[in-house]
């Protein structure tokens, strides 16, 4: 009887072992290529998350940013090629997620990048080792703004101002509510014959001739 009980215990143990092995090898746990020990254990959840991330990242950029600065030698809707300062060149892919930065003209588009322009590209490599641009920034040859110094010849508050520089050239600018008058304590002194510095866009096509700020200089002693 005792021998029979031991045999029964051994059979039960073997059955339990077989069931466990079958459970670990069950195709239900190999769905979508995932090989997880069980659906609810912390280890299984971590493995599943890692697998999901790997699937999401496949073919997407990864790794450290690579920065390049040079002259645009070719550009189209899919890539930009820079000639670097050492004479070498680098081609970087453009994507819908590439941020384009154009200082100055507000109505610029990615198509505004032309060969010969200076540019900086921040890129990252995809799984295939290809460079993909995260951001492309055009570096202007001159600042987007200009300072004009002269004597006020006409002034209509909130509307327009005309100045004459030391060479006799006259410039007329539009004023808006956003135009800053500096310093604040001299704002009330702005009038015809005031000597001023006007800060305005260099390229009138980029933002009209709207003044960003007017600095009123102290009256000559």
């Amino acid at each position, binding site marked *: 009887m005792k021998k029979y009980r031991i045999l029964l215990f051994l059979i039960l143990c073997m059955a339990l072992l077989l069931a466990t092995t079958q459970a670990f090898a069950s195709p239900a746990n190999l769905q979508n290529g995932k090989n997880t020990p069980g659906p609810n254990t912390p280890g299984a959840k971590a493995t599943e998350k890692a697998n999901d991330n790997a699937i999401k990242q496949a073919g997407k950029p990864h790794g450290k*940013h690579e*920065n390049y*600065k040079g002259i645009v030698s070719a550009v189209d809707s899919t890539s930009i090629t820079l000639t670097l300062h050492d004479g070498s060149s680098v081609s970087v892919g453009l994507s819908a997620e590439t*941020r384009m*930065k154009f*200082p100055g003209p507000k109505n610029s588009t990615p198509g505004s990048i032309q060969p010969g322009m200076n540019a*900086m*590209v*921040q890129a990252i490599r995809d799984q295939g080792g290809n460079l993909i641009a*995260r*951001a492309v*920034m055009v*570096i*202007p040859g*001159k*600042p*987007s*703004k*200009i*300072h*004009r*110094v*002269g004597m006020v010849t006409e002034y209509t508050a909130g509307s327009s101002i005309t100045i004459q*520089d*030391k060479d006799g050239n006259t410039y007329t600018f539009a004023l808006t509510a956003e135009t*800053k008058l*500096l*310093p604040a304590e001299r704002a009330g002194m702005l009038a015809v014959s005031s*000597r001023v*510095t006007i*800060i305005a866009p260099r390229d009138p096509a980029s933002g009209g001739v709207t003044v*960003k*700020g007017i*600095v009123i*200089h*102290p009256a000559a002693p």
Partner: protein
Amino acid sequence: MVNTPQVDVIGSAPAGAVISVNDEILIVGDDGQFKTTVSLDEGPNLIEIIASDDNGNETSLILTIIYEP
């Protein structure tokens, strides 16, 4: 390259000179010093600095800086 979202632009110029740093306009004080803080976007950024005196003399500098958090 920096890992902070803003940088200080500090310099010296003759008193009364007008300095523009991107959209910020400064008038140099009697101590000849100026300082402003520029906020950066992630990635490449431009800092345009223009200085002029009341005779209309002007000089400028364009800096590129990369902000990588």
